[in-house]
C-alpha cells in the first residue's frame, strides 16, 4: 500500500513538490516551540531600530522588533490549526448532504440543491465578511464561515458522483443483500467517490489558506497577539519602501503553501486520469 503510493508520487513531479511543501510547513508548525529562535510576541524596540535581516534576526524584525522568522514559524501553526479544521468541517457537511441527495433524489435532493444554489450565489469573500463581522473574528466563527461557504460546492460534487455510482452493479448487489441505505452510501459509494473528492479537498485547502490570509489582511483574522501570516502583511505593507522584508516573507510563506496544495491537486488529478 505505502509502496504503491510512493511509486505513484514519484511518477508525478508536481504532486511530489506539492507534498514536500505541505509536509515541510506541517513540520514547521508541529515543531514551532522547538525551532522558533524567539518568542513570536516578544517586543524589542532596540532591535526595531534596525529591523533589517541580520545574524541575530535572520529574516529581520517587524516595526515593534518582533522576530519575523519566529512569527512566520508560529504563523504556520495558526494556519495548520485553522485550515484543516475548517476544510474538514466543510467536507463533512458537504458529504453528509451531497451523498444522500444523490442516492435518494426526490425532495431531499431538491432542497439541498436549491439551498446550495442560494449560497453559491454569494461571492465567497462577501459571505466571510458579513458572517465574521456579524459573529466576530474567532477560530470557531472562521470554521463556521468556511463550512457554510464550501459545503454547497462539496455537496454538489458528492451528489454528482453518487448519482453516477448509484447505478453500479455492486450497489445493486448490496441492495439485493438487504444492506441499509446508510451502509450503501458510506461504505460502498463513498470509498469509490474518494478520487475527485480528494482532489477537490487539496484545491479547497489551498483556497482556505488564501482565504484565511486574506481575512487576516483585511483585519478580520484571529485577534492580534496570534501570529498570522495575512496579519503580518497588513501590519507592514505601508513600510515596503523602507523595510520590504516585513511584508515579503509572510507573502512567500502563504504563496508557497498554496502552490503546494495546488500542485498536489494537479498531480493527483493527472494520476487519477491515467
Amino acid at each position: 500500500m505505502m509502496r504503491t503510493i510512493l511509486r505513484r508520487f514519484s511518477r508525478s513531479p508536481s504532486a511530489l513538490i506539492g507534498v514536500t511543501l505541505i509536509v515541510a510547513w506541517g513540520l514547521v508548525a508541529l515543531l514551532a516551540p522547538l525551532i522558533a529562535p524567539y518568542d513570536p510576541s516578544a517586543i524589542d524596540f532596540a532591535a526595531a531600530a534596525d529591523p533589517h535581516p541580520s545574524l541575530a534576526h535572520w529574516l529581520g524584525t517587524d516595526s515593534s522588533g518582533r522576530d519575523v522568522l519566529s512569527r512566520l514559524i508560529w504563523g504556520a501553526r495558526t494556519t495548520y490549526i485553522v485550515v484543516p479544521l475548517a476544510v474538514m468541517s466543510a467536507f463533512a457537511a458537504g458529504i453528509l448532504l451531497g451523498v444522500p441527495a444523490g442516492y435518494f433524489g426526490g425532495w431531499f435532493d431538491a432542497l439541498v440543491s436549491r439551498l446550495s444554489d442560494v449560497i453559491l450565489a454569494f461571492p465567497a469573500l462577501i459571505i466571510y465578511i458579513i458572517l465574521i463581522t456579524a459573529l466576530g473574528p474567532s477560530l470557531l466563527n472562521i470554521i463556521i464561515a468556511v463550512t457554510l461557504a464550501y459545503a454547497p460546492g462539496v455537496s454538489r460534487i458528492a451528489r454528482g458522483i453518487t448519482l453516477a455510482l448509484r447505478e453500479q452493479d455492486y450497489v445493486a448487489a448490496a441492495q439485493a443483500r438487504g444492506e441499509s441505505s446508510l451502509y450503501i452510501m458510506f461504505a460502498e459509494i463513498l470509498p469509490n467517490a474518494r478520487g475527485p473528492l480528494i482532489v477537490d479537498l487539496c484545491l479547497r485547502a489551498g483556497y482556505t489558506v488564501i482565504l484565511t490570509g486574506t481575512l487576516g489582511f483585511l483585519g478580520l483574522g484571529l485577534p492580534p497577539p496570534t501570529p498570522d501570516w495575512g496579519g503580518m502583511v497588513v501590519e507592514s505593507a505601508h513600510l515596503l519602501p523602507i523595510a520590504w522584508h516585513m511584508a515579503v516573507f509572510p507573502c512567500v510563506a502563504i504563496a508557497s503553501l498554496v502552490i503546494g496544495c495546488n500542485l498536489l491537486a494537479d498531480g493527483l488529478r493527472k494520476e487519477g486520469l491515467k
Partner: protein
Amino acid sequence: MIRFLLRRIGQFIITFLAASFLLFAVTEFSPGTVASKILGPYAVSSQVDLLTEKLHLGDPLLLRYLRWLGIVAGVVENPLGDPAIGLGLSDPRGNRYVGNFGYSLMLKEPVVDVVGERIGYTALLTLLAILVIIPVSLAAGVAAGVNPGRPIDRVLSMGAVILTSLPEFVVAVALLLVGVVWLGLLPGTSPMTQGGRWPLSLQLVLPVGVLVIASASYVLRIVRASVADTMRKPYVRTALLKGLKRRDIILHHVLRNAMIPPITVILLQINWLLTGVVVVESIFAYPGVGSLLLQAALFGDIYLVQALTLLALLVAVGTQLIGDLCYLALDPKIKLG
C-alpha cells in the same frame, strides 16, 4: 425556447429572493443588535424602546423581511426618516421611493447617494480588468492548448498554477515592490483624485494589474484544458487526415467548440472578480464600492452592507443567467430541459 427562458428567469428571481432573505436574516437577526447598531453603544433605554416601536423590531423575522422588501420596492415608507426618532436622517427624495435602502449609519446619508457616488469607479475597474483578462487568457490558453506537452504549454501551465495560487494581496505586494519601490514609475495608492502628481490612468495600472494576474491565470487554465480536449476529438483528426491546414483546423474547427466551457467560466469569473475588487480597492484606497463594503461591515453599517451585498448578488446571479443563455446560443446540442 420562450418557456426555457421564462423558467430560468423564474429561477433567477427565486434564488435572488432566497439569498436576500438570508442576507436580511444575518444582518438583522436580533432586534437588539439593530437598535444598538443604529443608536450606538451608549443609547438610553427610552431611545431604544422608541426605535424598537417605530421600526417594529419586535415583529417576527419574516414579517420584518417583507416590510424591508416593501421599503426597497417603494411601497412602504421607511420609518427611519421620521424626525420623531431624532437621528437627523433625512432624504430629499422623501421616505418612499423605489430603491430605498435606508441610510448609511456610518456616513449619515441615504444609501442610494453613497453607493451612486462610488459605483462608477468599481464598474470602471472591473470593466478594464475584464477587457484585459479575456484577450490575454484566450490567447495564452489557446497557444498552450494547441501544443499540449510542448515547452510553451509547460511554461504557461506551470506559470498559471503558480499565479492562481497567489492571493490578491500577495500579488499586490509584489507589484507595489516592483512598480513603486524599485522602479518608482507608479503610485502606491489610487484615490482617483485629479491634479496630484499622478494622472488617473497611472493610478489605475496597479489595481487593474492585480485583478488581471489573479483572474487571467485561472481562465487560461480552463481555456487550455478545453482546447487540448477538443484537439483530441475525432473530427479534428478527420480534418487533419483530409489534408486541411493546421491553422484552418484550429481557427474553424477547434476554437468554436472549445470556447463553450470557457465562456461560462469567464462569466463566473465575474463572481470572483467581485471578491478581488474588495481586496484590491482596500489595498489601493480606491474609492469604489468594494472597499466601502468592507468599511461598512467593520463599522456595523447594516443598511449599507445590505445594499452593497444585494448589488453583488444581482451581478453574480445575473451573470450566471447570461452564462446559461450564452451556452444555449453557442451549443445547439443542449436540450432545453
